[in-house]
């Protein structure tokens, strides 16, 4: 690990800055990403946004001129201070998947990801799983059981999501801090076990 810190101008001093790592929280719309971030974050989740320039699907073909549109993508994030030298940021990926997949700054350098799934519509998490697999970003899966209701067991969920046996899976109510904590710990233990 190499720490590079920009030099303050002579005669000035800066307080020691912590270093940061980030974990992504992904999954389909309304699956509980912000709920999880809120449950484990030491601050109320913050919201920030970014402009994304995307090639728009051609309605009018202007011939040779690439048509681009700018859209705004918002995301919620929280923080967990490990110690004075280390802070973990949790970024809930924006609901519009086709946009955040192109947001390199969000994806690059992430330790790993948590993919949340809802048993009533598991297919809404397929895109996130495919994305992390294709980018080689390690992930764990959290199945959000609202009000403790579980209508599928772990084996069924693994099968439906086509998850390898090595991918950790945690089922629980993501509003509970202990469930979110277990999910994040399972991700980091997975990273340690696989030598990431």
């Amino acid at each position, binding site marked *: 690990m190499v720490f590079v810190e920009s030099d303050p101008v002579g005669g000035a001093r800066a307080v020691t800055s912590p270093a940061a790592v*980030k974990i992504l929280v992904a999954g389909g719309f309304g699956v509980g990403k912000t709920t999880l971030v809120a449950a484990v974050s030491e601050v109320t989740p913050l919201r920030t946004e970014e402009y994304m320039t995307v090639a728009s699907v051609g309605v009018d073909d202007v011939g040779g001129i690439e048509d681009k549109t700018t859209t705004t993508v918002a995301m919620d994030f929280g923080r967990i201070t490990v110690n004075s030298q280390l802070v973990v940021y949790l970024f809930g990926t924006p609901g519009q998947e086709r946009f955040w997949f192109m947001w390199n700054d969000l994806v690059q350098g992430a330790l790993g990801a948590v993919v949340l799934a809802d048993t009533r519509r598991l297919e809404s998490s397929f895109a996130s799983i495919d994305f992390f697999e294709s980018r080689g970003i390690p992930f764990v899966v959290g199945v959000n059981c609202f009000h403790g209701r579980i209508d599928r067991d772990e084996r069924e969920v693994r099968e439906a999501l086509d998850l390898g046996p090595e991918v950790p899976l945690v089922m629980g109510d993501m509003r509970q801090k202990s469930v979110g904590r277990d999910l994040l710990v399972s991700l980091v233990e997975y990273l340690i076990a696989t030598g990431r």
Partner: protein
Amino acid sequence: MDDMEAEDADDAESLFVRPYTITQGRTAPARDDLTLITIVTTVEPAPGRAGTRGLQPEHRSILQQCLRPAAVAEVAAELNLPVAVTKILIDDLVGLGRVTTRPPIAMAVGSESNMTLLRAVRDGLRRI
């Protein structure tokens, strides 16, 4: 009543100032190394160097906020500006020597220092 007026003024500002007006039309920072989790820390000026003349209100807000180190994403959220615009403003302050930046920890797969980091993260998460 005063409070209400202040609130109106804020609303008017956020409604009518286009984000890239704040950056004087610039759409990219001079340097390209700021990330969402780059940590920004205000440099406490030596006596006599404390001036904020020539700085825009947003620059001053950043200097105030980053007395306690904060990530670029946190600064953007506090300013209520898009990340890209916030990066330009932070970059201005880096150029003036008013803030320092610390990039995210670079992960080297399988390295011993990486394992030390991961164990620290795990232990920290277990305590929440």
